[in-house]
């Protein structure tokens, strides 16, 4: 018996057997769930149907409260209910002093950390939802007072709660869908590929992130690309120009397809007028500079694209700056297009 009255029943999808998904939250803000239920075409619940996934329990969506949840967890522990997919949203909290008491599981009197570790060992696949669950994230910021860590990584170092050698029962490592928050489609497309049985280790990058979104850079598809090409930079927020030179944008180095698939319709950080702060990367929560400022050495931004010789970049930048069209130069420091492209000549009618 499950929290919703169905045990391993066939859902309305196409799979042979409903896969059970259990969702837990710990040291985080719940924002990944709120982002996930912004999924469109299909919406999140329909996506679960398509994937043949039965939601055993989700803290924001399910009917069951404690007295109904605890027996279901007991069924999972005893193997009476199979745990096909475990999703953790939020970091694992280990403090104070390794006790886990900064997050006790409500109604159970035990550290949430222990439940997460136990269920991870039982799950066919384990998914870290968001940068907190993947790497520690904002919950681990500052001096990390709460001793927060990711499931299988602590920052960029493999390890975390479960250890570098952890494999779920399927043989796969923890799938790290990083992002603060996650894009709904990153989660939906991972779940669908798992359900269709064609998602393997090879689909993950070195940090355990699905390559389908992590092999792009935020820079790809950025609507400010022309400004970037000419190093025509915004001087302050709300200017149209490139945000890299002065305003801290890390989009040329950050792994994600934010400017290709877009958010809440047609948004993204850079389209919203503010820089990429590298929220899909481990350690984004502990920058050594202010987020809205580009650190520079001798006037040159220190965070240049990683796969290009610096000298070339500097030379090209100097050249393109010198060649910047008046239109691009003036628009870069304006909030609206003040110099439109010159009218096209078109082709004369014969």
């Amino acid at each position, binding site marked *: 018996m499950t929290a*919703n009255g169905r045990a391993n029943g066939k859902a309305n999808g196409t799979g042979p057997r409903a896969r059970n998904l259990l969702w837990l939250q*710990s*040291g985080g*803000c*719940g*924002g*990944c769930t*709120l*982002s996930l*239920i*912004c999924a*469109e075409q299909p*919406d999140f*619940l*329909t996506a679960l149907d398509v994937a043949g996934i039965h*939601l055993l329990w*989700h803290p*924001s*969506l*399910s*009917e*069951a*409260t*404690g*007295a109904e*949840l605890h027996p279901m967890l007991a069924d999972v522990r005893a193997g009476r209910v199979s745990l096909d997919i475990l999703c953790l949203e939020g970091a694992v*909290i280990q403090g*104070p002093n390794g006790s886990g*008491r*900064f*997050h006790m*599981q*409500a*109604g159970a*009197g035990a550290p949430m950390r222990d439940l997460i570790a136990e269920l991870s060992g039982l799950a066919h696949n384990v998914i870290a939802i968001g940068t907190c669950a993947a790497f520690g994230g*904002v919950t681990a910021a*500052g001096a990390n*007072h*709460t001793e927060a860590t990711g499931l299988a990584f602590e920052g960029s170092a493999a390890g975390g709660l479960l250890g570098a050698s952890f494999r779920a029962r399927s043989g796969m490592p923890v799938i790290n869908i990083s992002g*603060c*928050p996650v894009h709904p489609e990153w989660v939906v497309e991972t779940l669908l590929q798992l359900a269709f049985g064609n998602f393997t280790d090879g689909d993950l990058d070195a940090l355990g992130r699905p390559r389908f979104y992590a092999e792009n850079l935020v820079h790809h598809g950025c609507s400010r690309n022309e400004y970037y090409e000419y190093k025509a930079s915004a001087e*302050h*927020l*709300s200017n149209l120009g490139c945000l890299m030179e002065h305003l801290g944008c890390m989009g040329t180095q950050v792994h994600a397809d934010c400017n290709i698939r877009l*958010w*809440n*319709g*047609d*948004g*993204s*950080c*850079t*389209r*919203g*007028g503010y820089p990429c*702060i590298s929220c899909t990367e481990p350690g984004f929560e502990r920058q050594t500079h*202010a*987020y809205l400022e580009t650190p520079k050495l001798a006037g040159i931004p220190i965070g240049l694209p990683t796969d290009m010789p610096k000298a070339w970049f500097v030379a090209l930048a100097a050249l393109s700056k010198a060649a910047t069209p008046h239109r691009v130069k003036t628009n870069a420091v304006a*909030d*609206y297009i003040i110099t439109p492209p010159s009218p096209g000549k078109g082709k004369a009618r014969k």
Partner: protein
Amino acid sequence: MSRRVVGPFNRVEGDLEISLDIAGGEVKGAWVNSPLYRGFEQILAGKDPRDALVYTPRICGICSVSQSMAAAAALAGAEGLEAPENGRLMQNIILAAESVADHFTHFYLFFMPDFARPIYAGEPWYDGVAARFKAIEGAAAREILPVRAAFLHIMGMLAGHWPHTLGLQPGGTTHAIDRAGQVRVLAILSSFRRFLEMRMFGDGLEAVVALGSAAELSAWAEKPGPAASDLGVFLKLAKALGLGELGRGTDRFLSYGAYEESGRHLFKRGVHAEGGLHAFDPRQITEDLASGWFARPNTPRHPSRGVTIPDADAEGGYTWCKAPRLAGEVVEVGALARQLVDGHPLICDLVAQGGGNVASRVIARLLEIARIVLAMEGWVRRIAPHEPFYAESALPPDCEGAGLIEAARGSLGHWVTVKNGRILNYQIVAPTTWNFSPRDERGVPGACEQALIGAPVRAGETEPVAVQHIVRSFDPCMVCTVH
């Protein structure tokens, strides 16, 4: 007397556990525990003040923009910076979009599914309510997710995305829109309004906001359109289950005032207590640590001088939540408080008759959806394209500021002290910190703890459904509470 521990409470944002003393078929005492500590106030110490705009939204995934707005207001206050008119309007629109989406999500996904619980299976209204509102499987959940997602396109357009935008700044907003942008936002609002009028209210928004008394509401709910609407269904349930007598709280209400425009608030600022309206004095806010797991000694302090040092072994502690008090008193915050302080006649009448309770809290939230959507339409039209949306300025190295705003769930305050260009102290008092606070040094329980007293326990119930209704009527956000 038996003591029961109920939790985790789901369909609230974050983690919640409540201990109940039960005797004679009702709740005699309640202790609200927020079992997760995250330490944002410690994280912020020593940071560049502008970085508060990166960290504080991540306190909460559902009140993310509200946290941004409070941080931006605190920093703007510290620099004495005024955002240009367009920036102000955009801040209001973005904050309003979050509040409306939150009220909407709360009603359909968090609150109503409790009426589809098996314990109500014998009730004459059960089948229809379960078919529409059952968690996950009900028709409403399937219907509203696309509506909510389409409405939040406003965030994609104006703020990059939601949650966790950097688009709200002390000097305004970072993305200027033109006339085409204006009409696109208006079109999204119209489409959302259509859903509200078809399904949530069964009537025009103007008719909803014009309801002037409890009697008018009852008569309205009998009309064919409204009667078949989701609010109409709730009003029938409220009558059948006595929700107007359930979960009465302190009947002292606070609103910081919501949606500032041209020096005034759309929804007024003030305190409603002993049946009358009083001025709000921010200096009267204190946070008491007597029942929190925080280092002693405990002396209630104003948040601008607040201290947050966790201590899991603190004597007398039972939660990670502090206990904010106004002039030493417990107050309730939220849509009900906001609409009451603003003097909306329907809400004033409901509170005069039955105080704050499960029904009046929910009605106020839905009324507010209608009022805010109408206001949003006006703000969007008032944007002047090609005028500035953003003003740049530098923060003085030593300064102090307070950002007092209204989030969906109620009064949210940020207090920041900057020294040598770095954050010396940052304190946050969130709406649910007010509503779900524990006992203070005088032993006075918090607003929800008070509201739970007298909740009926049906035969055989381990986790009383009445308790579920009362707790969720506050729309608690526990991740904000414990930040």
